[in-house]
């Protein structure tokens, strides 16, 4: 196990290096001058020139890349062009909110999705199956932006049950988590259903039933556990994607999260912030993937770590 983890750690290095090079090139290639954008429309040419020097934009590109990389290796991701605060500080400030929402959405989606998918598989081709699959389809097809506003209208404005914006209390996280989890729940429901159908058709399930094992136990102990592997892959991938993709939900619910931070930074060409934040998210994504792989061995003892 330890050797495996170390191996994955070593693999991370070239991936992150490639990511750093990619994000650096992309953000520099996009038209738009950070000095102009941040100095404001009423700035004089001298102010803009001074901003350019301050940001190190007058240095050749390889020098700028090296400064970024060297800093990143020591944990210093530079200073944000926009606020002047250290990038690491800004990311740490925001990360908690995004993490809670992404994690909450994943857990909700997994629980709800697996429950729905199991019901659909067990009640296959009956009413429950149809209802669940339609709901899953709706969940997958609904744009998160629209869903967010609809939930806010219903639960905050019309029924006054939940707060609409911000992160002041735990209740503030409910609507964002539900919004973000909806799409994933739909996907997981469908995956679970098809995986369960596969497993329920297996001989050992028939054997278990013949032995007189209670149906509930058959479904959960024998079938569901074996259906978990494909579902796990989906969950792992979705969590990583959710981490980076919360921006719409963060914008609608005014949550000070990482998604908004990255988008705002891109729009203002805040190079250090974009580079640093993307690197952090990439690292997290790799870690989550590695953990998912390790989790396979727990779920399915037949799988050996490479």
């Amino acid at each position, binding site marked *: 196990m330890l050797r495996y983890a170390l191996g994955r750690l070593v693999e991370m290095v070239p991936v992150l290096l490639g990511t750093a090079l990619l994000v650096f090139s992309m953000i520099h290639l996009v038209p738009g001058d950070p000095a102009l954008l941040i100095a404001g429309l009423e700035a004089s040419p001298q102010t803009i020139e001074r901003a350019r020097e301050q940001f190190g934009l007058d240095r050749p590109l390889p020098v700028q890349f090296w400064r970024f990389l060297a800093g990143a290796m020591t944990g210093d991701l530079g200073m944000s062009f926009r606020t002047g605060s250290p990038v690491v500080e800004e990311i740490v400030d925001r990360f908690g909110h995004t993490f809670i929402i992404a994690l909450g959405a994943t857990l909700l989606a997994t629980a709800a999705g697996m429950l729905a998918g199991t019901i659909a598989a067990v009640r296959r081709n009956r009413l429950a199956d149809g209802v669940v699959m339609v709901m899953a389809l709706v969940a997958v097809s609904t744009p998160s932006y629209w869903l967010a506003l609809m939930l806010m209208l219903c639960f905050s404005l019309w029924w006054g049950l939940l707060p609409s914006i911000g992160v002041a209390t*735990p209740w503030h996280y409910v609507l964002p988590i539900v919004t973000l989890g909806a799409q994933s729940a739909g996907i997981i429901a469908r995956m679970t259903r098809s995986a369960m159908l596969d497993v329920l058709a297996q001989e050992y399930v028939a054997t278990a039933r013949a032995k007189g094992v209670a149906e509930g136990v058959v479904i959960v102990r024998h079938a569901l556990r074996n259906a978990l592997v494909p579902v796990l892959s989906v969950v792992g991938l979705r969590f990583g994607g959710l981490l980076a993709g919360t921006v719409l939900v963060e914008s609608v619910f005014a949550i000070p999260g990482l998604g908004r931070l990255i988008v705002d930074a891109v729009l203002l060409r805040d190079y250090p912030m974009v580079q640093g934040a993307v690197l952090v998210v990439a690292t997290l994504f790799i870690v989550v993937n590695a953990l998912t792989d390790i989790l396979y061995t727990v779920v399915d003892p037949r799988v050996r770590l490479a």
Partner: protein
Amino acid sequence: MRSHGTRIGSHSPAAVAVLLAAFGAGCTAEPASPAAERDTLVFASSADATTLDPHNTTDTQSDQVIWMVYNALIRYDPEMNIVGDLAESWEMSEDELTWTFHLREGVRFHDGSPFTAESVKRNFDRVLDPGQGHKRLSLFEAIERVEVVDPRTVRIITKFPFGAFEPTMAHVSAAIVNPEVADRYGSDFGLTPEATSGTGPYKVVSWRKDQEIVLERNDDYWGEPGRLARIVYRPIPEAASRVIALESADVDVITHIPPRDVARLDGLPGIQVLKGMSIGAQMFRFNCVRGPLADPRVRLAIAYAVDRRAIVDNLVAGLAVPSTGPLTPIMRGRADLGEFPHDPDKARALLADAGYPEGFETTISTTPRYNMGVELAEALAAQLRDVGITARIEVLEWGAMRQFWGGIRPEDNPQEIFIMGAGASSADADWGLRPVYMTTPTGTNENNYGYYSNAEFDDLVMRAMQEADRTERETLYQRAQEIVYLEDPPGIWLYDNFYVVGARSNVQDITTSPLGVVTFEAASFVPES
């Protein structure tokens, strides 16, 4: 207060308990107490402040908070007269170069240190120091030096008789910062609550980035104390969310309301909508050195081709009025030159005269960053087609648009007709005309984004900048505005914007300034009956 709506049918005590708990927790999440007079106001704007250092601010979200935390020597009152703030009185010398300010007594900064003439000197030394590189340095370039006469008297000496001196000293960036705190934090001043210190009616107690800024009343304020004990600024970037938050009373005041929501909000019980004239106008500018647009007759033709009334009525009804000059009505030194006539025949005649009887092809560049940016370009293109000009529309993201505005040589600038916002943050003709329309010395476009050049105009605004006599100034600016508006246009002015604020009905005495900020030094809640 939240509307309770219908109670969802409760079938079991458990369900009721859960609902009540959710509702109760939601209620306690609100910052205010229901009984007695509420003393905390929550304001939501479209973005977080970037800095609370007045010498470095370039956006209205930062300005809004800065106005509550600092004072300047003089300021604009709601009717746009200049009155004393930290200065009780001031006068200009005979040679028009020296301004003497007599300062209030007994004023202290938030940390208790006294405000004196020395504070003023150190404040302006700071913003003028090229080594520190503050963004607002260029605004104060006319200042030669500041002298302390005695603790209550300070002299500001200008390099030349500066006609726009008073509006410049009433600008948000002329606010006086606590020199001790500024020295201690250097370039970090204004980025955290500890590093922010002024003399204003409120002080910053916390700032969680992108989340909220909390101000508390300064009980030692030298002037009229604020009625509210706390003010909370919450950035809500999504416009629809902002409106919902106001309707559900999660926030008390909002700005940047989408046009179609303004009329609806106005009719809702529990909500009031405040409107006033602002310094901002919407225009399109020309690249005056490119193709057919280099001929003033062509540019004038385009001005005649545009139907401003139709644009206002269809796109921004209730939120703007057609322009009557290159400066909005509340700006100092502005001339009222009437609505520009819509005359397609005259436009065609001018085009023929300039050698384009069949019209020509051009490109309109726009960005959705300006309200209705894309729709305006489409309207313009349709109106130009009427006179034979075929315009292709190019929609750009802000960063891509902005990169052509500043330091670009004409041969590297492909823009032809492009959208632009007009408005000077000092509410004065000098800042609103000179940097944007005067011929640039370098030949790149600097702040004159369209390479406009008119020798008579240059002469007029240079003389007016150095003219201290108000009447003489106004005569010079009158002629300058006639040139750009009626004779040799650098662009077309479409409409002057209102500044719109939405608030709960129980908030009173909100101060809306045409400068585009809303402040709460006199605001309070109507007591519950």
